[in-house]
């Protein structure tokens, strides 16, 4: 297993100016006494599109929670634009960084429009409850995610794919440069997975958002993300472009998987064709 993380210089997306937006330094994350992530360093630059991959239970969702200040590190820190995220007022963070948990819940009867509207919370105050800008941003977010026609439907009556679009619409309305998504394609069929990831890719390409996404599907991660971060047992194992990370050796090391890696016939990105599970 190649556990030499700090040595590999973090790669940046082509569109980036290289400025570090989000960084983890010597991060240790633990639930009570159980340490999930230990001694992890990671930098995410402006305009990058990063996918965190790894086997179940490797700590990738935990890492994402910590990056989104949902979890207080046991040691080390997360820096947002150079400031310790835990020491930054949470509302200030919310204007810069948006996040979508794995299976977000909506109260029964809450409509899509209401949901997207709540994304404006960080920009509102008691004096300024519903500005013209809020109105415009929400309308635009609904339009952009193609949810306008469903705006009055209760979220709990939508299909899985539509629901995910609604939540992404909310994240868009929040108007943050950085967006963290935890497995946004869970429980979706393949065409809706593509649909959601297209939307995320457009957030990055058209709206210039810096995106960090935890993904299970390696082929989709390789196709959409510009940078892959592979984790195993709470440790960052590899980081780089999909071509650099998705090697047959790494698949064996990280996923215990014997596989061929071939070029994706559509996008030219690496594509994993599993052979069998390796037992060690």
């Amino acid at each position, binding site marked *: 297993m190649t556990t030499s993380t700090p040595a590999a210089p973090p790669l940046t997306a082509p569109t980036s100016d290289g400025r570090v937006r989000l960084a983890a330094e010597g991060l240790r994350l633990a639930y009570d006494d159980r340490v999930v992530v230990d001694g992890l360093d990671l930098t995410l630059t402006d305009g990058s599109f990063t996918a965190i991959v790894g086997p179940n239970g490797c700590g990738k969702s935990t890492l994402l*929670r910590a990056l989104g200040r949902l979890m207080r590190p046991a040691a080390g820190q997360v820096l947002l634009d150079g400031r310790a995220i835990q020491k930054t007022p949470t509302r200030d963070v919310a204007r810069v960084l948006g996040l979508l948990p794995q299976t977000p819940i909506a109260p029964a009867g809450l*409509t899509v*429009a209401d949901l997207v509207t*709540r994304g404006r*919370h960080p920009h509102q105050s008691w004096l300024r409850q519903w500005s013209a800008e809020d109105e415009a941003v929400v309308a635009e977010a609904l339009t952009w995610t193609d949810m306008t026609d469903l705006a*009055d439907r209760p979220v709990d009556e939508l299909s899985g794919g539509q629901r995910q679009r609604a939540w992404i619409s909310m994240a868009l309305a929040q108007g943050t440069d950085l967006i963290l998504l935890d497995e946004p394609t869970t429980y979706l069929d393949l065409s809706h997975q593509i649909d959601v990831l297209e939307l995320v*890719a457009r957030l990055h*390409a058209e709206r210039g958002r810096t995106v960090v996404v935890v993904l299970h599907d390696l082929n989709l991660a390789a196709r*959409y993300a510009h940078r892959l971060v592979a984790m195993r047992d709470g440790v960052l194992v590899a980081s780089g472009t999909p071509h650099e990370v998705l090697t047959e050796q790494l698949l064996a090391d990280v996923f215990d998987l014997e596989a061929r890696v071939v070029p994706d016939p559509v*996008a030219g990105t690496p594509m994993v064709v599993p052979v069998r599970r390796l037992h060690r």
Partner: protein
Amino acid sequence: MSVPSVTRAPAATPGTPVRPQRTARTRRRVLGLVALLVLVVVACAASVAIGTRPLGLGTVWTALTDRSLRTEEAVIIWDLRVPRTALGLMVGASLGVAGALMQGHTRNPLGDPGLLGVTAGASFAVVLAIALLGVTTPSGYVWFAFAGALAGTVAVYVLGAAGRGGATPVTLALAGSTLSALLYALVRAVLVSDTDSLDAFRFWVVGALAGRGADIAWQVLPFIVAGLVLALLNAPALDLLGMGEDVARGLGQRVWLARTVGLVAITLLAGAATAACGPIAFLGLVVPHAVRTFTGPAHRWLVPCSALAGAVLLLTADVVGRVIARPGEVQVGIVLALLGGPFFIALVRRRKTTTL
């Protein structure tokens, strides 16, 4: 690296979506609010006019507008009916709002302020006041009941939050019901062995507006006002918490702050209401369920509407209690349970309302 994109064309130009249903919902909320305001006025009028001695609305109006009048009717109105109505308004609003907050914070449709140990704490303190200090008047009970309610809630919260996991809705509910059972057991221990205490306590525990003068209303008013203000401040945060703590935090909400404000508001409102009238079950449970049918899950609407609906329900129940057992009256707490119980069951049996 190229990302293959099948970018879809925007469905409409920004800013122009027409949302007829959304305005329909807003209209329904506004209509509901207006209807509740009208009902509050009607209930107040009925509460002042109807009683052991029925008074015409004309008499009521004259007595209310001309304070120089010292007729027997005017005395009844100013010394008995008006304080009673004012107290009913305050207590009903408090319990309705406390219930809405409780259900919002626990995301549990059974959320009732009684679960937090408010009622049990107040009952215990009142029993001690009766048995040890010989207090036997409603105005004498107020501060004991209030102190007991506060202590009960704090104890439940401390127990429910003990340990690193912190207070979850489940541990709070278990701690609340357990501590309540313990306190009630102590209450019973006193009452079983002391008939005089039982004789006083049995009239407090039913929950009544009768016999409460203006002094009690003034005593609890500051706490109720403070509780209502905190509740209104808490409403937007509750909307965010409804989407889960992670999303709420992601949108910049300080969760602990919202929880603390909510708990303080619930304690002030339910504690003051119990202190003034004795335990009034059920109002805090039923009102938010009923109101949610037209406001939906938005707490900015739910909280104020619950205040109005709570006031209407309490005053109506009080008036009904004065009418059904003439010349005596049935205490408001009992009428509420008898009216509210079937209503709540009907509500529960309509499938959609069983969830929040």
